[in-house]
């Protein structure tokens, strides 16, 4: 059964209190972030649960969850590499980085490795154009990427997962 952790439940009340009375739907985007942090992705059950917390219709949640690119509507790998492919990153070699990661992990953008460890995704400009090429990994950015840096990041993830 889907259920927020005790810690997250406390956060829910605080988040709802940020908005005017009766406008608790405004808390939807933050609550979906919270749910995704807890479960890694948003299942229909999770979305229904969030709908019930906010007393809104489930469809209102599905609509929003499918609009925003950061919500994962299916499970992803333990580590997701979101590599920027927009102009400024492209002219600094993002295509090569995407290809390199793909070859190294033997997956295409949008796919997850068989061991469930890595997902590769291409994304559009993340506001790090001066530090290109770059990718987002969880909460943080990895910038000025080179093949060596990618190797090191993958090694580090593998070591942590073991």
């Amino acid at each position, binding site marked *: 059964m889907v259920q927020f952790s005790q810690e997250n439940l406390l956060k829910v009340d605080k988040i709802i209190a*940020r*908005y*005017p009375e009766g*406008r608790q*739907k*405004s*808390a*939807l*985007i*933050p609550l*979906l*972030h919270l749910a995704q942090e807890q479960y890694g992705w948003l299942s229909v059950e999770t979305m229904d649960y969030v709908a019930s917390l*906010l007393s809104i219709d489930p469809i*209102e949640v599905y*609509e*929003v969850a499918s*609009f*925003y*690119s*950061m*919500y994962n509507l299916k499970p992803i790998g333990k580590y997701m590499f979101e590599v920027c*492919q*927009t*102009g*400024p990153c*492209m*002219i*600094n070699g993002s295509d090569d980085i995407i290809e390199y990661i793909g070859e190294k992990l033997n997956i295409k953008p949008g796919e997850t490795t068989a061991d469930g460890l890595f997902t590769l995704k291409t*994304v*559009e*400009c*993340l*506001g*790090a*154009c*001066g*530090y*290109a090429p770059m990718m*987002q990994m969880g*909460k*943080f950015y990895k910038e000025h990427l080179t093949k060596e840096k990618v190797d090191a990041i993958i090694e580090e993830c593998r070591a942590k997962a073991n």
Partner: protein
Amino acid sequence: MGRKLLLEKAHVEGIRYFDTYRREGGYRSVEKALKTMGPDDVTEEVKKSGLRGRGGAGFPTGMKWSFLAKPEGVPRHLVVNADESEPGTFKDRYLMEFIPHLLIEGVIVASYALGSNTSYIYIRGEYAWIVDILEQAIQEAHNNGFLGKNILGSGFDCDIHVQRGAGAYICGEETALIESLEGKRGNPRIKPPFPAVKGAWDRPTVVNNVESIAAVVPIINEGGEEYAKIGVGKSTGTKLISACGNINKPGVYEIDMTISVEEFIYSDEWCGGIAKGKRLKACIPGGSSVPILPANLLLKTAKGEQRMMNYESLADGGFQTGTMMGSGGFIVFDEDQCVVKHTYTLARFYRHESCGQCSPCREGTGWMEKLLLRLDKGQGKMSDIDLLWDIQSRIEGNTICPLGDAAAWPVAAAIRHFRDEFEWHITNAAEAQV
């Protein structure tokens, strides 16, 4: 060396924390405003400063504030736009990451001027670690009596909440941002009514860019008239420029709008010249939505005058031979870069980010992406160039929000200035196939 008003202290050790920031003169503008000025006096100073919105549209900030509707008994809100998603733009991130208290200080003063007791900072979802930095700064400001109830005994109450987006460029458009803040999809609303009349939860709302709000701090500290002395003409004060692409020193720079584009690109104080000793080919000086210019038109206007880094000079010549200051996202291309490929990546970006409400934008961006991909791969026909031109011309002005225009302009400018390169892609590919 130009004057710095925003980033001067950004690299003082520990400036991210309240104590250091305060010791360096921080929060003086809050004391000055709340203790010695009325809310309308603050707005008046901002008007005098000539500050123009730093989010890209350049609308005078003081004027926007004075348009805020003030019906009795209806709460008003300030919402800071920290959605920063325009390709080439990363200045707001820099400001929030290195000197977060400057933004918080500006929010308090602006909230006082506007009568906003609850203000929001809407930040793009990917800047997740910056949310922590801002929340810590807010907490510190609370602990030191600059936020919460009865700030500095003035009777003014103010709280600030940080709201994370979740990945959608369109949520930087102010009415889409408001929809998102209300927990909905980011579909822009038709304007008017402007948010200043009917915004978040139908309440009067001012939406301002991060940099605009930060600029309120030096404006109040030094006075609007002093601020207006910096810069030239209607380009007053300082402007943050995020520079990227094929340059030696990518980064965020604060300029006072009196330097030339040439100086900005080649001086060691700023971009440090083109990387790897290459030649400058073209530049998009104001974020991906503004027209690209070839080197000759970038450095000198069609009249042969030096082009300067300010609103008027960048726009000189209109869209025929000029461009725009936009968001200050300065993207430089060297001689090896392909305009067709670059334009394709932008078309893909806008197709991906269209909210889909208006058919010219939804369908047009898709068509442009397909055609540009075909051209880039060398599979295009000569007639594709005219078709592309035709499609972009049908989008502009026919949509709810300017994302449609923003998608059309770069394509138009690329064809206008680099048609030979498009043709080259077609003829060369045709020859290669024989």
